[in-house]
């Protein structure tokens, strides 16, 4: 069964450093998403991406965040200058058509020291 993959599985970084989280969505999917889950809290929406542009973003997704689909298969989340509060599990998700299942990747656990 096709699946969403994410790399790395874990990332440790120093505050103020840039990180890039990588995702490979399911190949024929059209809608792409990033979510995050701070330890012990709900999964929160960050951003959705469709037709090579951001379609929606949450208040969390400020100017420090950006997304890119550089080559038609990868989907990346960049955090320019990490803060301690960015420590969380980051999930990538993708979906085929409206109303279909949204499939999540295994997540990248980011720890900012």
């Amino acid at each position: 069964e096709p699946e969403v993959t994410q790399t790395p599985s874990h990332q440790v970084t120093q505050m103020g450093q840039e990180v890039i989280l990588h995702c490979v969505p399911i190949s024929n999917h059209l809608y792409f998403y990033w979510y995050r889950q701070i330890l012990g809290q709900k999964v929160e929406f960050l951003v959705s991406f469709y037709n090579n542009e951001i379609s929606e973003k949450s208040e969390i997704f400020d100017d420090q965040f950006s997304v890119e689909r550089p080559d038609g298969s990868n989907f990346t989340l960049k955090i320019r200058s990490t803060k301690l509060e960015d420590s969380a599990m980051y999930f990538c998700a993708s979906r085929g058509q409206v109303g279909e299942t949204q499939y999540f990747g295994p997540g990248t656990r980011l720890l900012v020291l």
Partner: protein
Amino acid sequence: SQQGEEDPQALSIQEGENATMNCSYKTSINNLQWYRQNSGRGLVHLNLIRSNEREKHSGRLRVTLDTSKKSSSLLITASRAADTASYFCATPEGGGYQKVTFGIGTKLQVIP
């Protein structure tokens, strides 16, 4: 208040028993999804039920949807220790782009 809220927040049962988790939501939806998350791991999709469906079965899982009450339930029959996880309902929002909104989840513990 949140779109999807699960009840109970924690459930502890003996292996072999059935586990029922409930989800309530507030706005109209076209589908509702259930996910499982093992501790510190990824989100595994369990089922999607559409607004015109009332019940779906998948192995030991049964999902119901009552749009008049804006509620859904997930029943796991003959539970196993491996079912120990957090279970979330997720409802779509945002028109065509349809992000999903998660509740806080039900933490299920199945005791061997």
